[in-house]
């Protein structure tokens, strides 16, 4: 039952990205996405500090991308 619920969550999360081969913009429309603050990780130092804090205080870690390695804090 738990696995079926997880599958439902996965499908729901994927819906926005379904049919992605027809979604998108033209190359000349990338001006807004080109802004530095639109990068998916625009503040890597903030992310590094936050990931370390949450890794050492919580049981679930990462998920955004590969972390910088382990620490003895968890």
């Amino acid at each position, binding site marked *: 039952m738990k696995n079926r619920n997880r599958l439902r969550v996965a499908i729901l999360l994927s819906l926005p990205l379904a049919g992605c081969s027809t*979604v*998108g913009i033209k190359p000349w429309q990338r001006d*807004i996405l080109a802004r530095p603050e639109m990068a998916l990780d625009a503040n890597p*130092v903030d992310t590094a500090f936050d990931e370390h804090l949450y890794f050492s205080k919580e049981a*679930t*870690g990462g998920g955004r991308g590969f972390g910088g390695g382990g620490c003895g804090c968890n």
Partner: protein
Amino acid sequence: MQLKRRPGAGNLRTGLMAATCALLAPAVKAQVPAVEDNGDLNKIDAGLLYYQEDGGRVRSIDAIVKLNHDFGDERVFGMTVAVDSLSGGSPNGAVPQKYAQTFSTPSGKTLQPGVPEDEGKLYTIAPGRQPLDPNFRDLRVAGDLTWSQPLGIGNKVAADGHLSAEHDFLSASGSLQFSRDFNSKNTTLGAGVSLELDQVRPSGDVPVAGSDYTLLQKDGSHDNKHVLGAQLGVTQVLARNWIAQLNFSLDNSGGYLNDPYKILSRVDASGAATGYFFESRPDTRQRRSLYLGNKVALGGSVLDLSYRYGWDDWGIASHTIEARYRLRIGGAMYLEPHLRWYRQDAADFYRLYLTGADPLTGSMSSDPRLAAFTAKTVGLKLGMPLANGDEIAIRLEGYQQDARDRSSALPALSGLDLNPRLRAAVLQLDWRFGF
């Protein structure tokens, strides 16, 4: 088509990179800090952070410096050095009692007071207080090297190596990531693998898991663990002002997964402690997570909204919702409020304390980090971009963690807060510049 670095090409290159980064986004994008590209080949991102918990608990000062060098043609080298200095009190896992309790620091050899060679190693907890080991002190130094480059047309590959050392823990890890663009670079698929090898070298040696704490039985000076990770991700441009990413991550850990400094209290029918035991966790753990992130430009402002669902075979499922809103104020300055909400279940083998009915074999832990709790973060960042593309920023955050199970009806424990609220404040200074 090769894009050679030339004046004015900055925006086009950055634009294409923004549209082609996938799950690599944090790892690979992290190679190129998001400052205005003014043609600097070297970019440095430095941060200094002060972290303080309330109630005499952990305090740390962390410094990090990230350097990126652009060799041209989207080949980027990155280096990170981080230093963390920690001190303060850390919960040892035992529950408060209505009388004073005495424990030994991990390097102590006895719980008997008055033994000369163990002088100063015993600590006494006042009645009603959560047992904290006040001698928690550590210095961690870590270094990372990363390299990313195109591979053929529309593909990108990145590699990362990491080493870190603290007085009781060594870690080495590496990862390899690959991404490919589709659909006129509106879609990027990425995959990566990682391996981490750790050695735990506890102060006072490795305790025998699940054994009677008062005997202070140890078995060897160190033990090892490894973590194998993999990630699949897709990034999709959904609109001119909206990019999203969906990542599925998994990691499998094996080896020594205990916290060597954590114990559990065993109480009788009245709630009075009759003994203490070293914790014992399974020697494997499988974790999975699904992460959905979004970046949406709203006029001159940017909304970052994400959700993560995590689960593992220890029985811990979690939800994380996080939002940041970067609001442009006066010129190029910005204010960025931050909200995060997190909830996790307890591990199957988590116990606030052991009773006479609980077996002393098998997995058991009172580590508050494995308990069921809700955590909230509220923060605010002020950023001041400078004329030449540099930026300074200051960030203030508050973190609060509230456990679900904090009390007991047993008479000797009634009225005591068995897992007090954790509150922490963070102050961070950031400086970003290029040359």
